[in-house]
C-alpha cells in the first residue's frame, strides 16, 4: 500500500526526522495562507506546490511548481486543481488532482567539488539475505535504479539486525562513508536510526528518503541541517491489520475501482491491457493461465485468483468484476478441483453464467466462455458443462489448459 507525499512527511516528522515546513491543501482558497506559513521566517521566501498523486512524472507535467509570491502559489494551485495531470505513468486521460502539498523550498548547500549536498537513503527487505537493509548513496535526487545500474560502487548497503533494528555503530559507519562531517554526523545517524524504527514499527516494505539534503549553515546549525525533502513509503498489505493509522491513509481514488471491489469479496484481481478475461483458482495457476493465453496468441485482460473454494458466489462476483472491463471479449475459467470437486464447481460456474445480470438488464452470459476443469469428479463436471450448453450457447468445455487457451483465443478472434 502506497501513501501520498504529504502523509509521508507527516510520518517522518512523527518519527523525529526533520522535513521542511509545509501542509496539505485540498482547496485553492487555502493556497495563499499555506504559502505564507511555509515561507515564514525565510530571507528569500520560496515554496513549492506539488500535486499529490502516486504517479510519477509530476515535474515534467507541470504539477510541481516553485513559487516566490502568494499570488503564484494560488495560480499554481488553481492550475493543478482544474487540469488533469498527464504523464507516462498515468492513464491516457490523466488524473484528477484533489490534494496539493505546499512546502518551504529548502535551500541546499553546495557540495565541495561541485553539485549540491543531496543524498539517497532507503530501507527495504532483502529477500536473499532475509535482512532489512539500509541503502544509501551520495548521489541523491535522481533515480536510484539508474545509479545502481551505472555505478553500483556508489551505493552503500548495510544490514539491520533482524531482532533489534539498525545498530548505531552501523549507522555511523554509513554516515562517514557518505561524507557527513562535524555536527552533520549525529544528525544523519539519528535520521537513519529513526527511519529504521519507523520501517520496522509500521511494517514498511519500502521507506525511502530522496533526496536527503544538507542546508547551508545557520545560527542553530553551524554545519548545516540534515533534512528529508521527499519521501516514498510502501507498506506490507499483510500487516495493515495492526496499523489502523496507516490503513486510514489509504486513498481509494488512487486505485482501480474494480481492484478495490475485488478485494472486498476476497478476490485477488489485477486489470491488464488485453481482451481475454481469466478466472482461476490459485495465484500461480492464474499467472500460468495468463502465460498460456499469451502463448496461444491472445492477450490476457486480467489476473484473477478466485481463491481455494471457487464457490458459486465467488464466481458470480468474479464474472461481474471481469466484465466491468469493457475491453473483455471472452472469458476463460481454469479451475483445478482439489479439495472442492469438479461437479460442484461446474454447477457453480453454470449457475453464475446462466444468472449473470448484464449491464443492459438482460440475464445470461453473452461473451464466449471457455471452461477448463481438472481434478476430482472431472467427468461429471464436464458432463454438466455439456448439458448446460443449451442454456449458455457461448460456453465451451476444454480438455486441458492448452486446449482452453486455443479455444478462447479462437472465439475472441472471430
Amino acid at each position, binding site marked *: 500500500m502506497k501513501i501520498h507525499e504529504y502523509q509521508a512527511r507527516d510520518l517522518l516528522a512523527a518519527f523525529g526526522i526533520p522535513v521542511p515546513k509545509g501542509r496539505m491543501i485540498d482547496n485553492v482558497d487555502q493556497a495563499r495562507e499555506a504559502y505564507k506559513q511555509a515561507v515564514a521566517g525565510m530571507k528569500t521566501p520560496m515554496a513549492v506546490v506539488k500535486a499529490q498523486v502516486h504517479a510519477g512524472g509530476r515535474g515534467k507535467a507541470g504539477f510541481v511548481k516553485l513559487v516566490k509570491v502568494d499570488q503564484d502559489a494560488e495560480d499554481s494551485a488553481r492550475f493543478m486543481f482544474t487540469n488533469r495531470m498527464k504523464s507516462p505513468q498515468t492513464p491516457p486521460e490523466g488524473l484528477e488532482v484533489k490534494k496539493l502539498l505546499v512546502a518551504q523550498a529548502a535551500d541546499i548547500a553546495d557540495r565541495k567539488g561541485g553539485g549540491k549536498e543531496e543524498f539517497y537513503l532507503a530501507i527495504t527487505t532483502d529477500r536473499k539475505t532475509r535482512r532489512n537493509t539500509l541503502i544509501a548513496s551520495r548521489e541523491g535526487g535522481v533515480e536510484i535504479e539508474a545509479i545502481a545500474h551505472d555505478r553500483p560502487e556508489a551505493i552503500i548497503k548495510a544490514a539491520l539486525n533482524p531482532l533489534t533494528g539498525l545498530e548505531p555503530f552501523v549507522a555511523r559507519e554509513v554516515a562517514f562513508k557518505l561524507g557527513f562531517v562535524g555536527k552533520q554526523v549525529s544528525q544523519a545517524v539519528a535520521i537513519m536510526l529513526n527511519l529504521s524504527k519507523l520501517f520496522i514499527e509500521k511494517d514498511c516494505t519500502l521507506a525511502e528518503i530522496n533526496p536527503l539534503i544538507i542546508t547551508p549553515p545557520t545560527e542553530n546549525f553551524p554545519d548545516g541541517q540534515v533534512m528529508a525533502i521527499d519521501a516514498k513509503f510502501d507498506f506490507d498489505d499483510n500487516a495493515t491489520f495492526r496499523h489502523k493509522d496507516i490503513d486510514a491513509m489509504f486513498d481509494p481514488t488512487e486505485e482501480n475501482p474494480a481492484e478495490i471491489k475485488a478485494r472486498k469479496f476476497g478476490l485477488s484481481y489485477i486489470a491488464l491491457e488485453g481482451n481475454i478475461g481469466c478466472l482461476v483458482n490459485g495465484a500461480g*495457476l492464474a499467472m500460468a493461465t495468463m502465460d498460456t493465453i499469451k502463448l496461444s496468441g491472445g492477450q490476457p485482460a486480467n489476473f484473477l485468483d478466485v481463491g481455494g473454494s471457487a464457490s458459486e458466489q465467488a464466481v458470480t462476483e468474479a464474472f461481474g468484476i471481469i466484465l466491468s472491463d469493457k475491453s473483455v471479449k471472452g472469458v476463460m475459467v481454469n479451475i483445478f478441483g482439489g479439495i472442492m470437486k469438479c461437479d460442484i464447481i461446474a454447477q457453480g460456474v453454470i449457475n453464475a453464467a446462466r444468472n449473470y445480470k448484464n449491464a443492459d438488464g438482460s440475464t445470461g452470459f453473452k461473451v464466449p466462455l471457455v471452461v477448463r476443469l481438472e481434478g476430482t469428479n472431472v467427468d461429471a463436471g464436464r458432463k454438466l458443462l455439456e448439458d448446460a450448453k443449451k442454456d449458455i450457447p457461448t460456453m465451451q468445455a476444454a480438455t486441458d489448459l492448452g486446449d482452453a487457451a486455443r479455444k478462447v483465443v479462437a472465439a475472441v478472434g472471430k
Partner: protein
Amino acid sequence: MAILVDSTTRVICQGITGAFGAQHTKGCLNYGSRLVGGVTPGKGGHKDENGLPIFDTVAQAVAATGATATMIFVPPAGAADAILEAAAAGLKLVCCITEGVPVQDMVRVRAQLDAINSFSDIGGFRVCNWDKVVLVGPNCPGVITPGPKTGGGTSSTDTYTNAGCKIGIMPGYINTHISQSKLGKAVGIVSRSGTLTYEAVWQTSSLGLGQSSCVGIGGDPIRGVNHIDVLRKFQDDPDTHGILLIGEIGGSDEEDAAEFIKRYVTKPVAAFIAGRTAPPGRRMGHAGAIIDASGAGTADGKVKALAAAGCAISDSPAEMGKAMMKAMKL
C-alpha cells in the same frame, strides 16, 4: 524413502479448532496421515470431532503424543508466534499453511531459526542444514509423501493409504505411489505455488509417473525451505528419480536454484516458471510474486538460467509433465 515425512511421522495441528484447521485435520486423517492431536490455547483437555486430544500448548502436545511435526492454521497475526512455539517445543518439521503473515514477522522468525540450525557450504552456497527444525511455508499447501492406495479415503477408518503422509491442504488422491505408477519411476516436486503443484502432480500421474514427495514452499518473500534446500534433499533421496521445479516471478530463488543444480544436482530436472506476462511493479496474488522496478525477478531471466543449468523447460503449464518425461528420457 522420501523426504521430510513418511508414514511414521506423528503430526499435530496448531489451530485445530478453527474452521480451516478442523477441515484439513479431517482431510489429512482421511488420507492416512498419523494426526495425533491439536493445539488451541484455552481449549486444552477437550477432544476435536475426530476424537483427537486438544492441548493448550505445543510443549504439552509433544509430551503427550510424541509428535515430531506440526501443521499451522493459526491466523496471520499469531502465525509467527506459532512457528516459534513449535520450534521451542522441539518439533522437527513445521508446515505453516497460513496465508498473509507480515514480512517483518518472518524476518524475525527466520533469524531465530537460523540461529538454531547449522549451515554448510555446498557448491559455493551457504545452505541451511535444517538439522534442528525444518520450516515449510508460510502461505504454502504443505508437504506430501504419497503411499500406495489401499482404501477410499472417505474417513479415518477408510483411509486412502496406510503408508503415506500428507501435511497440509493439497488433494491427496491425485498423487501416485511409485509401486502403483505405470513407469515405476518417482519424481520429486518443489513449487512456490499451490494449485500449480496439483497441476504438476496430476500431469505426472497421468503420464504414468509416481511422486516421491511434493513440497509447496510457499509464495511469500521470506520463508522457510527454499528451492535449493528441497533440491538438495531430492538429490540425496535414492527413491527420487527426477525433479520438477515450479517457480514464479519475483526474487532470485530460481536463479540460485539454477546455479545449485549446475554444481550439485545430477538427477534430471524439469522446470516451469509462471508469470511471463506479469507487468513489473504489480504483486500477482502472492506477496513474493512481484517483478521489482529495476526489472529483477522476471520469468525470462529465470527460464534462461534454468535452461543454462540443463533443465528441461516447460514453456506452458500444460506441458510440465511432458518436460519431466523428456528430462528423464522416458
